[in-house]
């Protein structure tokens, strides 16, 4: 997109923005809360801050006042922007419900122009109210107790307020596209409200602890979430999605048909070899980028684990390890570990871990699933680091304890992690011409193919190796 195209897109989008902002200013349901949160609420916070400062000073607890004033600054900025969520839901799904969206969609405006125009309109009045509220609050404090924020804190609060408004609006767009009524959108809005409630609690803790530098990390995290939600919103906010359905329903039959078609695909009726060749192979090819990311994530996990080794050093010596290894085989045999039952137990444990990782990944854009899979590798890095600290080659440790079964288990973890990452991220950008649900079901089918055809057999082999081979290798190398 060239600069002139960007300018053209924004000038077109602002036609929508102007109308919507003007419309909001004529709606008392928006104007009255905004005035209240802009003028009366900051004055109330001002009064609260004053009273609290005077009260705590009597008991020599000035620190409470010192922490409370910046915290209230954040609250004064946040309260008006919470209205942006309501405006955004009303602006997007409300128009759909009132049927005034279709004439807009019939106009030559592009989807992007409509998205930008409406998003800016949903943010502008609440943000203006937030900035005004902050000004009122700070002016009051300057006049009464002579408090002024540091420029850094002021920038942090204003940036947080702005980005939080953008996250709320971009989240509201995603919700709006998936619903056909304001009622349904309000119900789904809890997916935004609950994380934001937790976020504000977290920010409160940071501010009462006076760890203001952490707010930069919160800001960075919010920017990432905002980018993801805007990308998702831009992809989903299209005419097809908006008018392609009239009622909110989950069509299980159609969902199953989509999943089944994606799972069996071109390999249907061509036997197991045909399915592997046509479907599993292509599913793995589609995981190219997630596979690279997963390899990178696991490498980072090893490095992180290794870095923690000197920080949390174990009371170990090379002799301890040798003593432990000598009795290693006997102990395992006593536990009945060196048996098919032991292998089955390991396999089940690993499958359970992958199931948990999938569940977590499905609701966190894949992130929590990947973090869970990074943990074992972080532990490997940590123990390898410990070995290095007591003078044993970490590579030898890895070759003995990890590599025999890791040759199968680590590729399985990489494949599964990549499939989880794609499943989680599939909602960010459905394939062209596919709905959000269809895109997710297709990613789920790829996950199922990879899990069943590759990961499960690899883990079964790894479990057998871990029980029957790894202990022998450990004994051979470290048994003395």
């Amino acid at each position, binding site marked *: 997109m060239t600069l002139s195209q960007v300018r053209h897109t924004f000038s077109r989008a602002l036609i929508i923005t102007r109308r919507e902002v003007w*419309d909001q200013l004529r709606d008392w349901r928006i104007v009255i809360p905004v005035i209240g949160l802009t003028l009366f609420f900051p004055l109330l916070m001002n009064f609260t801050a004053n009273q609290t400062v005077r009260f705590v000073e009597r008991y020599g607890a000035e620190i409470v006042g010192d922490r409370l004033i910046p915290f209230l600054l954040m609250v004064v900025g946040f309260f008006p922007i919470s209205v942006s969520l309501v405006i955004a839901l009303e602006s997007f799904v409300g128009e759909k419900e009132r049927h005034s969206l279709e*004439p807009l969609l019939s106009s030559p405006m592009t989807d992007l122009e409509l998205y930008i125009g409406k998003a800016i309109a949903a943010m502008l009045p609440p943000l203006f109210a937030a900035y005004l509220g902050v000004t009122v609050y700070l002016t009051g404090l300057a006049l009464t107790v002579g408090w002024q924020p540091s420029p850094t804190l002021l920038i942090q609060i204003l940036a947080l307020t702005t980005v939080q408004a953008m996250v709320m609006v971009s989240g509201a767009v995603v919700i709006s596209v998936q619903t056909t009524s304001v009622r349904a959108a309000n119900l789904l809005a809890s997916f935004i409200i609950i994380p934001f409630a937790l976020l504000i609690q977290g920010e409160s803790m940071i501010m009462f602890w006076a760890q203001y530098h952490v707010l930069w990390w919160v800001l960075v995290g919010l920017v990432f979430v905002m980018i993801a939600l805007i990308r998702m919103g831009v992809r989903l906010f299209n005419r097809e999605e908006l008018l392609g359905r009239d009622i909110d329903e989950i069509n299980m039959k159609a969902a199953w048909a989509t999943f089944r078609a994606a799972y069996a695909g071109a390999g249907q009726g061509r036997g197991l070899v045909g399915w592997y060749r046509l479907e599993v192979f292509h599913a793995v090819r589609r995981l190219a980028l997630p596979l690279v990311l997963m390899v990178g994530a696991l490498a980072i996990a090893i490095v992180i684990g290794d870095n923690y080794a000197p920080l949390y050093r174990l009371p170990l010596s090379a002799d301890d390890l040798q003593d432990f290894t000598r009795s290693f085989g006997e102990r395992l045999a006593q536990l009945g570990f060196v048996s098919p039952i032991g292998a089955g137990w390991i396999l089940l444990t690993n499958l359970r871990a992958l199931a948990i990782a999938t569940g977590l990944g499905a609701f966190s854009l894949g992130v929590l699933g990947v973090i869970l899979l990074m943990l074992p590798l972080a532990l490997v890095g940590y123990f390898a680091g410990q070995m290095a600290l007591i003078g044993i080659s970490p590579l030898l440790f890895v070759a003995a304890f990890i590599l025999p079964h890791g040759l199968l288990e680590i590729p399985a973890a990489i494949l599964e992690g990549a499939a989880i990452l794609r499943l989680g991220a599939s909602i960010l950008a459905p394939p062209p011409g596919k709905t959000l649900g269809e895109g997710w079901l297709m990613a789920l089918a790829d996950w199922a193919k990879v899990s069943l055809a590759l990961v499960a057999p690899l883990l079964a082999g790894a479990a057998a190796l871990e029980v029957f081979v790894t202990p022998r290798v450990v004994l051979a190398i470290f048994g003395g």
Partner: protein
Amino acid sequence: MIETQGLSKRFDSFLAVDGVTLTVKPGEVLALLGPNGAGKTTTVRMLTSILKPSAGWARVAGHDVVEEPAAVRTRVGVLTENPGLYFRMRSEEYLDFFGELYGLPPAARRARAVQLLERFGMADARGKRLGEYSKGMRQKLALIRALLHDPPVLLLDEPTSAMDPQSARLVRDAIAELRSENRAIILCTHNLTEAEQLADQIAIIRRGRIITQGSPAALKRALLGAPVMELQTAAPLNGLVEDLSDAVEIVAAGENWVRYRAPDPAQINPLIVQRLADQKIPVVTLAEVPRSLEDVYLQVVEAADQ
């Protein structure tokens, strides 16, 4: 000007439009008739480049609805099923907003808005907020919105629904006037009288498929048979009916009247009148018995149901 071939739209497992093939030339009005849920609105949405066809193609004013959606939307005026107005706005402000969306210069869109508001008898309501408008007024304003940029293609979904008879007449007359050599119109309606009055072509759609298509006269002929003529005389026919049966198919007869089918009225009727003149029986009237589009519609839909 509007051309579709095998146009289909599927929502999950539901086939809303199934292989619709239509051609509407400049200057023509096509009435798309069909029960609720037949696929009319989905077809219109595909022709406006709002929904992408699942199969087939459509070209509107020379532009492909999938490849050139912006060009299509610039050349189409759409009256949506629901007027969908912004109730806190006033008419001129509302039309100015849409005029800007369609890229009209400020002076042009103001002049056009005033002209259309006056034409549709809405000039007096300019001071009111749109929420205060009656249903009919809302519908008229939505029609004005569709006409604002003077589009060469008009897609009108139920243009006279919810209107009082006077307003409906006004809108029908306006649509008739809008027919021009450079404009093609698709009219989705349940009002068969309106369709018959305005349309050059009728297409009946049911469960997403066009089940019959043609001019009103051709459809009547095809489905109800050749036109029926009624002849009234000033004197008794006195057995002349039997004489006429060799030339035409007699449908019914009375003492001084007869109804007969005339596959080609231009040839048959002069012959009949000549025979009566020869018999010195004065003719009072000779006219085609009116047959409504409703008869055609019901017959087609019932046949399709069976």
